[in-house]
């Protein structure tokens, strides 16, 4: 079978888009009989946070499509609402990470000299930390809100885009059109933002799906450790950790968030492979 990057990008992108879509529509898709915007009946008529102690650990069936967890909460409803934490943290972290990395990389590439060495040193230092370790350590000191986690994840993951943008900026800064701009009296700031950054951004943007996938994994790992967004917000990582206790009798509690996480990261990676023109393997 012959595949081109384009034919592989389409299904991956479609699958990946599903997650923010579900996250956005979660309040409409799953809510209890009373709650919910507009008084509409939800396709998943269960509240993600409402415990029902008479319906604990029910297997998947007509009432609860993916079963219930150890507190009798609907697994599908929690899965849908959990997408909000994963996509929210993931997208925010990826955007921050690429913005900071691109800025630092372009600055290093354009300024050269001591600035360049300084940025490279910082890149080296930050890359010395396994992301999850630094983020977990940060979680000990900062209040565990979704935004905090996104900032911590971005703080550990910006060096990759910084390296990519720096390499590109170093080439661009020697291009004739930059010389022309400089001869025309453009300031250093103008050259950086107007002439170099737009052209140097492409390789970093192509890796955005990878950054997103890694951010989602780090957030899930943090939640799995119990250091992520605090309950009652449903999160996939925490759901997996909670499911460990009842793994023998209720595999569905673990399978649902595990599958969601896996598909999210897989589609992100596939899209990244297609965008950066990398074959599989």
């Amino acid at each position: 079978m012959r595949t081109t990057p384009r034919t592989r990008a389409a299904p991956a992108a479609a699958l990946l888009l599903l997650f923010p879509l579900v996250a956005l529509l979660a309040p409409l898709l799953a809510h209890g009989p009373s709650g919910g915007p507009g008084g509409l009946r939800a396709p998943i008529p269960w509240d993600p946070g409402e415990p029902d102690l008479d319906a604990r650990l029910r297997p998947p069936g007509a009432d609860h499509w993916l079963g219930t967890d150890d507190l009798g909460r609907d697994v599908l409803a929690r899965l849908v609402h959990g997408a909000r934490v994963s996509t929210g943290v993931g997208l925010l972290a990826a955007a921050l990470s690429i913005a900071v990395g691109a800025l630092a990389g372009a600055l290093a590439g354009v300024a050269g000299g001591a600035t360049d060495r300084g940025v490279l040193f910082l890149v080296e230092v930050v890359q010395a930390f396994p992301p999850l370790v630094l983020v977990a350590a940060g979680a000990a000191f900062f209040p565990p809100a979704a935004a905090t986690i996104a900032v911590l994840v971005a703080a550990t993951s910006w060096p990759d885009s910084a390296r990519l943008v720096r390499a590109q900026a170093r080439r661009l800064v020697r291009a004739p059109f930059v010389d022309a701009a400089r001869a025309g009296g453009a300031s250093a700031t103008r050259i950086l933002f107007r002439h170099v950054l737009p052209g140097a951004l492409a390789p970093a943007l192509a890796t955005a799906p990878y950054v997103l996938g890694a951010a989602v994994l780090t957030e899930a790992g943090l939640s799995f450790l119990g250091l992520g967004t605090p309950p009652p917000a449903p999160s996939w990582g925490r759901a997996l950790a909670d499911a460990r206790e009842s793994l023998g009798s209720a595999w569905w509690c673990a399978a649902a968030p595990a599958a969601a996480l896996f598909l999210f990261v897989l589609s992100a990676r596939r899209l990244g492979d297609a965008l950066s023109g990398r074959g599989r393997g």
Partner: protein
Amino acid sequence: MLRALLRRALAALATLVGVLVVVFALLSAAPGDPAALALRDGARARPASPEAVAAFRAAYGLDRPAAVRLVSWVGRAARLDFGRSFRDGRPVAARIAETVPITLALNLAALLLALAAGVPLAAAAARRPGGAADRLSGLVADLFFSAPAFVTGTALLLVFGVRLGWTPVLAEPEEGLRGVALPIVTLGLAALAPVTRVVRACLLEALASPAALAAKARGEGEAAAVLRALRRSAVPLLALGASLVPQLVAGSVLVERLFAVPGTGQLLADSVFARDVPSVLGLTVVAGAAVVVASAVADGLSAVLDPRLAEGEREPGEAS
């Protein structure tokens, strides 16, 4: 050569100091008083009295200016003195040293497993691109790059621990290999994807080189060709080894928690929970140091193997 190695060692040292400063900055930038946090027992959730907080601050030297604390922190950390745990008052270094052998053994076994499975798979994949082995290696990459260690581990736990009952559901080192098989396999599978991918790419390149063609013309067999290609890939493989360290460290944190292994990763998670600031800082430094040292050693060995690298400009730890 010697000068290049020395320069690399100095760069690693500078990075280590940078690691110490970053960890200290993390502590200083954090809102709230670590003393008040540490004294507020989770169970009682009642703020400590101001006198108790002041006494605590004095006992742990938290009442000095930040610059003084930074210098003394770097100086003491260089001697592996991370202070005493807020938890039990024992030296942090001793607490970490107790757990390191467990985590090291776990990761070494996992790495051996990943190599034992990954190198033959990659060799088979590289010999016939697009063949059955190559498709299997692609599946491995898709599966284990996208499934985090705690997802793979939970799946293994469900099948082998809960359903089949072959292994205990928590790690039990007293039971020998059976007791620790699941955490080792989980970590090994996480390392399998990068090992297979990098080894396959290296072998493909080396097998396509003119030297390989010449050897084939001389009548070199297939096994000998793969061995030669592996030897020619020593430098990127060293870089792979160094790049696996951060992944294994992060994986250990999750896997040790999943299987309740009393290792370094578990200690980190526990210390974060307990707001045990000195332990968290010490563990973060140890993790960072492990990565820096691994990367420097890989670069040094690469320079010895391929003297051209010592002269050229190559960014450390960069996978080819």
